[in-house]
């Protein structure tokens, strides 16, 4: 279904004539551009550094960006339903903190936050629950109090980050049992655990969006909310759900970061909302709602990871790194424009 949605209105009229060719259908997919950018970048990188195309490096990139990609899954749903979630970064930090306090064995310093030494699975669940709770509040602000999503989630960005800093007074939480840390640092075969998480969650979300009734509702609401309302769809509940899921997935990402880094710091994921949203948008998710796919969002997150990798492998001077990243974002947007013109 999502394919059809993604294709632009004025361009599909010709489809009236006959089924478009396979090539055309590939070009029409919103993820095509980002795949192209990724492939080109990878080609350049593998030419200029033998270190790039090693499974080690690839998994390294994936592990380091799996959490952003997981958060991007959630925000993709929110954006598809016509909303936005700016509180992602704060939610990641908050969930991470809750899980960290739950699982921590207690520190060895005089400056100690409460720690409960709960089993990792429970800590994980609590972290995700904390994220989902933030999402629920976001959703209620938008759905019940009818605050525009940008402002509602901007406010929550502040409130939740403030909560994290306030609760910790700037302290870090650490000293976790290895079973917890393994969630972020472990491997299953050659594949890092966070990547496994990403894979499973991405498949679940993709199936949800394509095959679950509410997945179609998400696209319908993002496409035209008034219509969806007058069709008798449970608009408010679906929107609420997207925020809750976004919070929960940011929560998963946040807990995985803590597990991977072995520490929860109040600055964690500061400003990540921009990366996460950019991942989705670069991956072809339309900010006005109703159009885009999970695959695109994940690829968008991977592109950002590859870029960070490239900065180092290509020896971009540190001072110029941001300019480089910015340029690639613009470049991929340009390529997307060219693709759209082709069709």
């Amino acid at each position, binding site marked *: 279904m999502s394919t059809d949605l993604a294709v632009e209105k004025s361009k599909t009229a010709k489809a009236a004539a006959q089924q478009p060719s396979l090539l055309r259908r590939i070009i029409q997919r919103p993820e095509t551009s980002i795949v192209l950018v990724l492939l080109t970048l990878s080609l350049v990188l593998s030419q200029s550094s033998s270190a790039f195309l090693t499974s080690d490096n690839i998994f390294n990139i994936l592990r380091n960006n799996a959490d952003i990609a997981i958060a991007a899954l959630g925000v993709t749903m929110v954006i598809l339903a016509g909303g936005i979630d700016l509180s992602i970064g704060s939610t990641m930090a908050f969930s991470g903190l809750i899980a960290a306090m739950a699982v921590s064995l207690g520190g060895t310093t005089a400056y100690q936050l409460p720690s409960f030494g709960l089993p990792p699975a429970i800590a994980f669940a609590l972290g995700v629950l904390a994220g989902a709770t933030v999402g629920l509040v976001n959703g209620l602000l938008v759905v019940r109090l009818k605050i525009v999503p940008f402002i509602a989630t901007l406010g929550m960005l502040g409130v939740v980050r403030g909560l994290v800093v306030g609760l910790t007074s700037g302290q870090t939480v650490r000293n976790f049992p290895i079973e917890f840390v393994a969630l972020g640092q472990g491997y299953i075969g050659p594949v890092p655990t966070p990547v496994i998480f990403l894979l499973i969650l991405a498949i679940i979300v993709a199936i949800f969006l394509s095959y679950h009734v509410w997945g179609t509702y998400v696209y319908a609401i993002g496409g035209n909310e008034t219509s969806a309302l007058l069709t008798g769809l449970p608009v408010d509940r679906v929107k609420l759900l997207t925020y809750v899921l976004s919070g929960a997935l940011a929560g998963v990402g946040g807990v995985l970061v803590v597990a991977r*880094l072995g520490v929860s710091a109040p600055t964690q994921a500061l400003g990540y909302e921009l990366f996460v949203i950019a991942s989705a948008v670069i991956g072809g998710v339309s900010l006005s709602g109703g159009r885009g796919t999970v695959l695109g969002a994940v690829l968008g997150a991977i592109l950002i990871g590859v870029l*960070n990798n490239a900065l180092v492998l290509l020896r971009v001077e540190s001072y110029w790194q941001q300019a480089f990243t910015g340029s690639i974002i613009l470049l991929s947007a340009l390529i997307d424009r060219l693709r759209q013109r082709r069709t």
Partner: protein
Amino acid sequence: AAPPPAAPPQAAQPTTAPATEKKPLTFVWSPKAVNNPVFDVARRGAQDKAKELGITVEWIGPESADAQKQAELLDAAIARKVDGMGISCNDPDALKPVIDRAMDAGIPVITWDSDSPNSKRITFYSLDNEAAARKGAEIMVELLKDNPNKTYAILTGVPGAQNLEARIRAFREVADPAGLKWVATDPCNDDIQKGIEVVENRLTANPDLAGYFMAGAWPLFGDINAMPKFQAAAKAGMKVVAWDILENELKLLKEGLVHALIGQKFYGWGYDAVGILYDIVVNKKQYPPFVDTGFDLVRTPEEADVFLKKWETGNWRD
């Protein structure tokens, strides 16, 4: 530069112990950012001292390092006419007008950790960043003495942050002429997660790196297992000199994965510096424009244990 005579009346009385009458003195202590754990140690130091002296210390700083915001918050504190301020300046010039406004309003100001040398502040309490970084570089040169491979990389936080730039500059001033080969300086935006990613990427690009200078401890905050490449490289002989003496770093040093730590006097930023300002306000003592705290150097497990003990007990007063 004697403080103007606006000191509150009770301060004029010859009491060094808690001022019992009326309103106690209120100092504002301002870190560069409140989301940074090292400043929390300073805060505890300040509060410990405040309790001893029977005064109030308010901790007012921007959420994250931002000179403009810090100046704005301090302006509001001036409006409240507090009795003194101690500031870790996000930028020397950006904080200068505020410091001058405070002094003109009769509020004595000292700086700590980070100075504003051209302002009217009374004194500056800190280590000498550049001297410490130079010492770090000397240690690195020494560590790589017998290694024919003299490549090293630098990790920094937000590119352009004053203190970090000073450390990097001083380090390279010593290291490069001594024959070390600089490879790259990578920024991590003061972000632990990004720091880990950057270090791993750097070691992918330069697997045979001989040395690493970390101008801040970001990736070392985390679990060392989050950086398999770093861990492997350190075990294979890569030498690491890093800033700060945080608990985690000290443990890494004991494990032999980090080889020298340069310590700032976090606790003193609060404890000692509040004492200095109290002396100035109440006891009318004179201080020179710069009070050097010196810095701590940790190179051996034994030295590390000393500082781990301090973290454990919270007792930094030797």
